[in-house]
């Protein structure tokens, strides 16, 4: 070390080959200068001792001790080692955290990732490309499990100008990474850094101050969230899950307000069902009464009118959205028929009332497998009345089939047209990424000669189909004439997802231009613009009452946000996913949203409180493409790229939340924990490499034969319909 001239900052700013320690010693002074310099010192010292200036001599010796043989100063502060300093400081912090107290370890470990990112970005920004690469490759390994995508995105950054163009780097540079720690952990960190100021403490402190937003909480007051028991429980595995309020857009849990001093009061949500129009309600009631008199309910069944009144009265009236704020076109005879049928189906459905006797409910799944697709199908969608299925393809067209093999006819067909049970919709000029049918309910054909028939009448079919594509447009198709009616252009990038409102008329779209937009079918310009995501808005979902939407994004953002469509403002934000979010579904009860990511994790969030309910794992990697809830909101079903349909129990795990149980029953697990403490790290590592661990919330899993599942859907009667393409 001492043999080489320490690089100065000025020397390393410039071509990389000249920068850093690896450059050959090409100091202008050269060997000659060194010798003369050393000799000169020698001569002076000899001279001083000869003359007896002992104090001057001592002073000179003392002062020259800090320089090496070449007369240049030996670096005593780590900052002076140039690009190397981040490696040594990171090592220092890592070792300290490893050896710190067990109760602080989980909190302190969360610090390593932001320090790692910012050390690397600083290295690149200061033009130490070689050191940056070295640093990155040395320390990236522990982060690959949780931050795989970010690590991959950061890896190719070599030059300061890349920092400006890399989304992830920009996100980290321009935002503060939020982190919550307990007082004690934070104090001990600061004390440690100040003690080791010269070995790099200042470097880390600098990063913490400039790029991190560390919030300290008192462990006592934080209670369950950061409580001791929680930390002890986390030690047994769940360490890799980021806290709810951690991350770049780190939010105040539950609230969409990211301000540091945001009020702790959450904005009030109206999660009840949308009230019915008075006229429509009267019509439906009359119709139901009529039906009840002609078909008296069998056995213990309720009459339809009772069922209907129960449904209306079930919710307290104070949390329903106002109908005046969200105008809809007046209802038609078709709406009445649909509402009547909904009540009927709701009464006659297969009931799934949650876990009974420890065994999950028996779900039936019909799988529709598409053949000969050559992986060209991008999305599949069922219509609400289960009569149509549509697939959007990479070849820019949409194909619609009739599920009951009925000819799809149009009044504009020429007489010679040969009817078939499928139609192509051609119009897009890029791959079609999402489809959505307008709402519909299967209305059975009016009963003929006494017995009811199983076939549905043609006018229960949905009227419209929406499609979104990479050509940045959304198109509205008529399913009566099988033609394109409207092209909606406003997005600037591929439109990833589009969803019809549960009551029709409105729809919402999300795009790679980082916005989601609200539209109404008769207008070609968007009504609302939802801006706030830091990367592509990957998917959208509606709240069942139609007053809110949910958006989710991937990339560096990975948040789920909830927006009020009337005011156009964000009302909730949820962070905690570690992968790109691929699917969203809000429960029919309106109180829980489920989101799934491409790392095979499903998270349930409570809307009123804005908090995470639980994480559920089980799917393999590669994306969960679809989620849906049973009518009672008691069971969640998911389908994904690993070719399985899985059924989940959504009830909250009481055991893991109640401190008591963990404390008492924890005695046994605690012993296990300490017994395996030596091999603990190794076990965790092998677990990470192995397949996904299935969490106990899974009720059952049904594998398909090499068919990734693109769509799962619960019908009104609680039958699951799944669709996928067979990929041999």
């Amino acid at each position, binding site marked *: 070390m001492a043999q080489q001239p320490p690089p100065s900052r000025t020397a390393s700013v410039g071509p990389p080959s000249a920068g850093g320690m690896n450059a050959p010693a090409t100091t202008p002074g050269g060997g000659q200068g060194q010798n003369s310099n050393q000799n000169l010192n020698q001569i002076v010292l000899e001279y001083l001792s000869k003359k007896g200036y002992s104090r001057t001599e001592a002073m000179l010796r003392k002062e020259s001790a800090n320089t090496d043989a070449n007369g240049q100063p030996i670096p005593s502060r780590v900052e002076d080692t140039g690009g190397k300093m981040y490696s040594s400081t990171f090592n220092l912090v890592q070792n300290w955290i490893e050896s710190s107290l067990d109760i602080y370890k989980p909190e302190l470990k969360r610090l390593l990732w932001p320090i790692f990112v910012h050390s690397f970005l600083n290295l690149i920004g200061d033009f130490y490309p070689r050191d940056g690469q070295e640093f990155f490759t040395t320390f990236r390994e522990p982060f690959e499990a949780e931050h795989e995508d970010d690590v991959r995105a950061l890896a190719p950054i070599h030059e300061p100008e890349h920092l400006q163009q890399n989304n992830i780097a920009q996100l980290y540079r321009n935002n503060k990474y939020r982190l919550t720690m307990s007082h004690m952990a934070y104090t001990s960190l600061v004390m440690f850094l100040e003690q080791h100021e010269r070995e790099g403490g200042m470097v880390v402190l600098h990063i913490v101050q400039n790029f991190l937003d560390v919030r300290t909480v008192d462990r006592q007051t934080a209670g369950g969230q950061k409580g001791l028991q929680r930390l002890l429980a986390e030690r047994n595995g769940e360490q890799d899950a980021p806290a709810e309020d951690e991350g770049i857009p780190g939010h105040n849990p539950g609230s969409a307000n990211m301000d540091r001093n945001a009020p702790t009061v959450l904005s009030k949500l109206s999660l009840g069902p949308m009230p019915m129009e008075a006229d429509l309600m009267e019509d439906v009631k009359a119709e139901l009464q009529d039906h009840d008199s002609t078909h008296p309910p069998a056995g213990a069944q309720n009459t339809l009118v009772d069922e209907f009144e129960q449904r209306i009265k079930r919710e307290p009236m104070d949390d329903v959205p106002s109908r005046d704020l969200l105008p809809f076109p007046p209802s038609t005879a078709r709406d009445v028929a649909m509402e009547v049928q909904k009540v009927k189906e709701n009464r006659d459905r297969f009931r799934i009332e949650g876990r009974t006797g420890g065994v999950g409910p028996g779900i*039936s799944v019909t799988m*529709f497998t598409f053949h000969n697709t050559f992986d060209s199908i991008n999305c599949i969608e069922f219509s609400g009345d289960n009569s149509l299925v549509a697939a959007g393809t990479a070849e820019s067209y949409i194909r619609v089939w009739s599920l009951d093999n009925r000819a799809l006819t149009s009044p504009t067909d020429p007489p010679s047209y040969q009817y078939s049970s499928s139609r192509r919709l051609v119009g897009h000029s890029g791959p079609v990424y999402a489809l959505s049918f307008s709402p519909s309910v299967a209305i059975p054909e009016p009963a003929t000669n006494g017995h009811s028939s199983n076939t549905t009448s043609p006018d229960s079919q949905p009227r419209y189909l929406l499609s979104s594509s990479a050509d940045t447009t959304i198109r509205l198709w008529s399913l009566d004439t099988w033609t394109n009616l409207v092209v909606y252009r406003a997005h600037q990038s591929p439109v990833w997802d589009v969803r019809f409102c549960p009551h029709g008329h409105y729809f919402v779209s999300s795009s790679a231009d980082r916005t989601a937009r609200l539209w109404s079918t008769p207008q070609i310009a968007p009504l609302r613009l939802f801006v706030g995501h830091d990367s592509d808005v990957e998917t959208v979902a509606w709240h069942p009452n139609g007053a809110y939407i949910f958006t989710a994004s991937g990339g560096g953002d990975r948040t789920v946000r909830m927006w009020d469509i009337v005011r156009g403002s964000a009302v909730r934000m949820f962070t905690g996913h570690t992968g790109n979010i691929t699917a969203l579904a809000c429960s029919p009860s309106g109180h829980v949203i489920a989101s799934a990511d491409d790392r095979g994790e499903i998270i349930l969030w409570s809307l009123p409180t804005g908090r995470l309910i639980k994480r559920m794992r089980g799917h393999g990697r590669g994306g969960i493409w679809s989620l849906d809830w049973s009518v009672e909101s008691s069971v969640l079903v998911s389908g994904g790229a690993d070719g399985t349909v899985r059924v989940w129990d959504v009830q909250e795990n009481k055991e893991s939340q109640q401190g008591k149980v963990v404390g008492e029953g924890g005695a046994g697990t605690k012993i296990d924990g300490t017994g395996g403490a030596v091999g603990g790290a190794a076990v965790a590592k092998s677990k990470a490499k192995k397949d996904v661990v299935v969490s106990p919330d899974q009720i059952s899993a049904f594998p*398909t034969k090499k068919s990734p599942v693109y769509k799962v859907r619960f019908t009104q009667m609680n039958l699951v319909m799944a669709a996928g393409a067979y990929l041999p």
Partner: protein
Amino acid sequence: MSVWNPENVVDVAESIGITSLNRDVIDHLARDVEFRMSQVLEEALKFMRHAKRTTLTTQDISQALRLLEVEPLYGYESTRPLRFGEASIGPGQPLFYVEDEEVDFEKLINAPLPKVPREISFTAHWLAVEGVQPSIPQNPTQADQRNQELSAKGPGANPTLAAVSGNDNVSVKPLVKHVLSKELQLYFERICSAILDDSNDEYRAAAFASLRTDPGLHQLIPYFVQFLADKVTHHLRSLFILTQSMMLIAALLENPSLYLAPYVPSIVPSVLTCLIGKHLGSPSLDGTTTHFALRDYSASLLSSIARKYGPSSSTLKPRIARSCLKHFLDSHKPLGTHYGAILGLTLIAGADGVRELILPNLKAYDAVLQEAVRDDARAEEAGYVIDAIKKALDMLREDHAELRGAVGEVLASRMD
């Protein structure tokens, strides 16, 4: 240090006429190229993900380039893998390039059109019924899914869940073993011996009465089915045992508290055997025509099964009809078999079946019958067969009096 080889930068520079490039510039450019490529790849991955694919295609790359406002690369299609040619420009310096196939225009025009790719189609099947995955060809077998983690393990996992979904490992045993109580075992033995006891009619009648009415027999059904199959296969010579077996089925079918639908597939073969079996009973002991009574009885039993369980199993009736028809058309089978087959077809398929399945074949069957009528030993049996055909035709006549065809008339006159 960068993945992208700086030599490539030199090569490209030379190809556009820049011969001297500073070493630092080369390194810088190489690093920049790497960064740009990863940028494109990141965007392309997004397109791949939204297409729900796990392989990146050239289409994704061109979409990504378009999104980054770069002119896409044309001429690469994703349906055919690229072929790379290799050329050596010196020892250990291979150069790779995309091989462009030379196509003879004449040949291309005259070549037959390539096959039209198959249409996209879809099929439906049950992936799960009431939480259990049925083992049908459309679903993967246990061996296929061994490498997948399907059920939860570790603390808190519910072992019964795994067992219920049919993914149980060997270690997980169902909680309840199928145990028959002593009383039921005793009951089963008594019933079996009573049914086969030809000395005591009263005893037998009591056994059948018990079977017809007792509500608590569900656990015994599999044992009775097994007993039945065993008796029918091993005692084809004894008309008595066969008849008793049929009566056992009739008794079970009549019991209102039993749910027999899952066992119908295993009951039907026994009944069919008694209907269209080649040789039932021994002619020396019972005479040549007594077995017709058994056939009649089995036919009525079969029709009642078909009526009761036909609606719940769409393949039941066609399957029975198919095997009856097969035996009817086989002229080498004895007349008894033909009798049973005609009877079965008449009762299962009804008037439509007679018209579609029996009528067209009567002309050909006439020859067989003629031969039998002339043969004294078989004349009596032939009479039974003719009666059966008459019965079938009567049914047809009732159904469509006016449609009584010429063939029927001819036959009827011949029979008279």
